[in-house]
């Protein structure tokens, strides 16, 4: 069963050209995507990008202006939220304040014609799934933020949904608890094998938890890819700057063959890259800039350190983070410094502003942009 899921994942949600207008404001400008059964899928973007709107359309709280949503092979047009195989964990958790934990979790089961004993058993199972066994009779106001979040999750899972929708579920928690819940949610999702769709504006959270991420800006999907691909091969400058830090440098193509592109980067030198590094729909002549991540640039402290390519540059600033130091470095012919992150090691001092250093870099770490 598991192997067939992995080798041939079934589509659980199919979005076709979904548009949503709110009066004259277009919140979604044509979203098409397929979400696979059993995957952890994230909608990532800044506030106002339409990610929550899209989630609410999938849940059935709102309806698309045009376009189609299919869940588990069935068109969802005209099907209200209470008849969809999806359940939502709300940003505010929406724990019913007048009901106990057990009554909150068992709320939806009362409509399913189960006996009292069956409901109690299901509720217990769901509560132990989220590590809240024994909290049945607690009142909502006696719970901490993290516990409320777990109750909201148990209340959704107990319905055995095909898809669990999570609307920024961790944004109200403090940093430590949030990191813990990120791992727990991911582990729970993997053990249950249910599709989770997470809405978040936190790129780190999306990278940690997801199988695939749709990055959204202004009502459109800018890129849909795995976390690694998204980080390594961002399709646009905007995606690149939204996910982590990216240094941009002017560049141009000087020569091209069937397999390789010869690129001149005034700040770093000449380099040959594989044509496969070009994003889809991107012609070599369109190249205007390259991007390189701070950790892909290396300050070569020791004279014996070597790299594929080297330039000499001047340190303009350093910021000490304990485990890491972030340098501002002015590359040859540039007016704005690039950022270089270096892991701190024993016995190595930190380069002072004004000092001259050798900077090493590799051709594979170069990302191409229009």
């Amino acid at each position, binding site marked *: 069963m598991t192997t067939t899921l992995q080798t041939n994942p079934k589509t659980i949600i199919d979005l076709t050209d979904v548009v949503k207008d709110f009066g004259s404001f277009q919140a979604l400008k044509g979203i098409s995507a397929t979400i696979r059964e059993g995957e952890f899928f994230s909608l990532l973007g800044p506030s106002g990008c339409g990610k929550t709107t899209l989630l609410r359309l999938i849940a059935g709280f709102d309806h698309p202006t045009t376009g189609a949503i299919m869940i588990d092979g069935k068109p969802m047009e005209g099907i209200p*939220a*209470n008849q969809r195989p999806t359940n*939502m964990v709300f940003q505010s958790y*929406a724990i*019913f*304040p007048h009901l106990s934990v057990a009554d909150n979790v068992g*709320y*939806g089961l009362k409509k399913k014609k189960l006996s009292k004993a069956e409901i109690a058993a299901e509720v217990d199972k769901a509560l132990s799934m989220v590590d809240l066994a024994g909290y049945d009779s607690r009142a909502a106001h006696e719970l901490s933020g993290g516990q409320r979040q777990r109750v909201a999750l148990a*209340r959704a899972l107990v319905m055995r949904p095909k898809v669990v929708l999570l609307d920024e579920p961790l944004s109200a928690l403090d940093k430590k608890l949030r990191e813990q819940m990120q791992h727990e949610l991911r582990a729970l999702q993997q053990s249950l094998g249910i599709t989770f769709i997470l809405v978040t504006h936190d790129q780190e959270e999306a990278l940690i938890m997801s199988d695939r991420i749709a990055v959204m800006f202004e009502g459109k999907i800018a890129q849909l890819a795995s976390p690694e691909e998204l980080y390594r091969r961002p399709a646009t400058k905007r995606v690149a700057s939204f996910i982590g830090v990216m240094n941009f440098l002017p560049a141009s193509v000087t020569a091209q063959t069937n397999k390789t592109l010869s690129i001149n980067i005034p700040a770093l030198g000449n380099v040959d890259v594989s044509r496969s590094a070009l994003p889809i729909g991107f012609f070599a002549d369109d190249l205007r800039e390259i991007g390189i991540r701070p950790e892909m640039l290396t300050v070569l402290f020791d004279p014996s350190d070597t790299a594929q390519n080297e330039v000499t540059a001047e340190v303009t600033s350093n910021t000490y983070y304990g485990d890491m130091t972030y340098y501002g470095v002015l590359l040859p012919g540039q007016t704005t410094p690039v950022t270089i992150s270096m892991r701190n090691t024993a016995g190595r001092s930190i380069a002072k502003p004004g000092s001259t250093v050798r900077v090493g870099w590799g051709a594979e770490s170069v990302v191409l942009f229009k």
Partner: protein
Amino acid sequence: MRALRKLTTINWLMIYAVAYMIFLYAPVILLPMFAFNDATIIAFPLSGFTTKWFSALWNTDALHGAVANSALVALITAVISTLLGASAARAAAQYNFPLKRGIIGFIMLPLVLPEIIVAVALLVMLMQLGLSLSLWTVVAGHVLICTPFSIAILSSAFAGMDRSLEEASFDLGENRWGTFRRITLPLIMPGVISSLLITFTISLDEFIIAFFLTGTDVTLPVYIWSQLRFPTKLPSVMALGTILLTVSVVMLILAEWFRRRAARRQGLDAQAGGGII
């Protein structure tokens, strides 16, 4: 020195506050005083304690009719204006529609319109429509002035309610009616009770509209007014007033208690926001 100055400031404020309270409540305190006074003439010095004016009330049949009329009018008014108020409050708190402010403003207007104008206008209109005056016309007038109070009370109940609670219920398979019954109603219930109590009290005490719009059946305040023509009945009126006063105060305290309970349930600060009393 500074402490002294502080003290004198507070003292002036205290004097003002006490004077204000005396001005406001001294006449009200006279009511029970003379209700228990053993004399027909309403004047100091008091002559002795008696409960005979209360027993006299017990034996007045016309009064019983008026009490029954008032109770009926107040009850129906409370239910209708709370229903209307709940609908309007929900619309105002949770939905956006064109001219919303204007519409809500017009509904709230009777709150500040002089009652005599409302009463005369209603009377003229009812006459034009050829309807005969009865307790029902009084109910109609009372609903008009009570609904704004109901909206004010229930608006805070709805505004404090997280909308995602209803969505969560819907998401968990419940339909709209079930969501209202299992989530919305229990959460606004204290506000509903508070609204019922306050609108009941307003209707029970209301005189002008009842005076203009009632037919042959009179309500309690109208009955009391009619009794003022007979000086010997005055102490009985005082006794009746005392009972009405007690009932009103108890109901308003209960209403406020329920409103605060509603706020607490929703995790809001009970002191802050929305209370009209």
